[in-house]
């Protein structure tokens, strides 16, 4: 993994259909970024610090070794936008408790199977006999409910606004079709309060944000305005290909050089200004904000999660099953919170690579391939690859 240009080989350099992964464009962009950093006087000692909020970007940055091909004057901070990584242990315990009911078929995205709860993971609970099944889509869970009318099918809904429309539309579909044995264990979270928590955290050093591409495809650009207006930080929504990220970096540096702070869109081919109205409508119909929601490593963040509205109570696993909602404190040595806020680098956590490895994860950041610690373990070792 030497450079951003690897994937372009197959797309064909100069191919007009591949404007987002062209080799020459990549080189030009890197050159432009180097010039911008020079003019800003940024170097390894005084880097411009950019936070990618979304785990997809964390993954892309490591996968393509982007930090390694950029000058040391820019530093990536990996934000809290991997929904699997911020799942508190108590929530996994709740899942296992629900799945322990013999009537239940518990369904989940594969990503959540290996996240540690306080005693075990969903994978271990499955090995111990619970009926836990990995599904690709909440629609698959609904299909299981149709096929097993004598069982209770529970879907573990998690993710930011990207996956929220899918679960909301599945609940609406269950209602339309009168499927009574389907319910949702809702652990969806919202991006904006999360970014606010980062901005308000002591030791915050973020100069600009690479905004999440697919969350923004749903919510549009308006919800980010407070970041520019109140916190005076620029945010550029970006796609997930190497050149998308590089272009976003350049757009951020351009704003920083002018002392500007605005919300901009690098990913206009997918992200409309106003988001996706049909998806937003489904979200608003089914979900309402919780007063607060517990995050792994970050503690409780006000109005950061959603729950199922009263109107759809019969599809709400929290109401149908006795979910305890216990808070389990993270192991004291675990520093996921500091890493999530960009205050510490993964390898600065005392457990990194010793007690905490991809095989024996202590924190969820080591589980998901979008988690900073796992990405660093897998692709790390390059200069500046953090």
């Amino acid at each position, binding site marked *: 993994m030497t450079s951003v240009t690897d994937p372009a080989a197959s797309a064909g350099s100069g191919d007009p259909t*591949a404007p987002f992964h062209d080799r020459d464009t990549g080189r030009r962009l890197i050159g432009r970024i180097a010039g911008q950093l020079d003019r800003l006087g940024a170097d390894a000692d005084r880097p411009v610090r950019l936070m990618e909020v979304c785990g997809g970007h964390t993954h892309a940055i490591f996968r393509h070794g982007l930090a390694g091909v950029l000058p040391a004057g820019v530093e990536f901070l990996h934000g809290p936008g991997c929904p699997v990584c911020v799942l508190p242990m108590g929530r996994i315990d709740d899942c296992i408790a629900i799945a322990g009911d013999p009537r239940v078929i518990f369904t989940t995205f594969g990503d959540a199977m290996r996240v540690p709860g306080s005693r075990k993971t969903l994978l271990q609970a499955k090995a111990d006999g619970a009926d836990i099944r990995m599904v690709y889509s909440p629609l698959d869970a609904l299909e299981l409910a149709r096929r097993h009318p004598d069982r209770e099918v529970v879907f573990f809904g998690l993710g930011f606004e990207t996956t929220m429309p899918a679960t909301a539309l599945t609940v609406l579909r269950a209602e339309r079709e009168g499927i009574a044995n389907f319910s949702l264990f809702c652990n969806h979270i919202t991006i904006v309060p999360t970014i606010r928590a980062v901005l308000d955290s002591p030791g915050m050093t973020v100069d600009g944000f690479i905004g999440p591409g697919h969350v923004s495809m749903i919510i549009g650009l308006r919800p980010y305005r407070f970041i520019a207006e109140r916190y005076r930080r620029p945010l550029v929504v970006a796609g997930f290909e190497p050149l998308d990220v590089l272009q976003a970096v350049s757009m951020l540096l351009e704003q920083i050089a002018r002392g500007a702070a605005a919300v901009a869109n690098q990913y206009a081919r997918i992200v409309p200004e106003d988001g996706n109205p049909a998806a937003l409508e489904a979200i608003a119909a089914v979900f309402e904000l919780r007063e607060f929601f517990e995050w792994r490593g970050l503690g409780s963040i006000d109005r950061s999660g959603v729950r199922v509205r009263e109107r759809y109570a019969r599809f709400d696993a929290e109401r149908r099953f006795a979910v305890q909602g216990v808070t389990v404190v993270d192991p004291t040595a675990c520093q996921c919170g500091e890493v999530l806020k960009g205050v510490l680098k993964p390898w600065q956590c005392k457990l990194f690579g010793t007690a905490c490895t991809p095989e024996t994860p202590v924190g969820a950041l080591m589980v998901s391939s979008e988690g900073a610690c796992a990405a660093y373990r897998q692709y790390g070792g390059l200069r500046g690859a953090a």
Partner: protein
Amino acid sequence: MCLGIPGRIVAIVDAAAGLATVDVSGVRRTVDVQCVAEPGGTPDQLVGRWVLVHVGFALSIIDEEEARATLEVLAAIGEAEVEIAAIRASIEPSPAPSVAP
């Protein structure tokens, strides 16, 4: 789960229910297309369009050339295989021709 994958809408399964067959690099499955339907339009108009599919839901229309280019890059870095394997292993929702789970 968060990245999604481009696919092409090849047939409408159930217009009223907003379900269509989407082809993702040769693997087909039923996808919910309610979020990409033109307001006031008919679902037939979607046939042939490329969409970005997240966990069984089409959430954005994409330009054909861009979709192909994205797939090439995803394939080159091995990212597409994971997603396609997940789709292949997924449960085909009725009323489409069903595949044993």
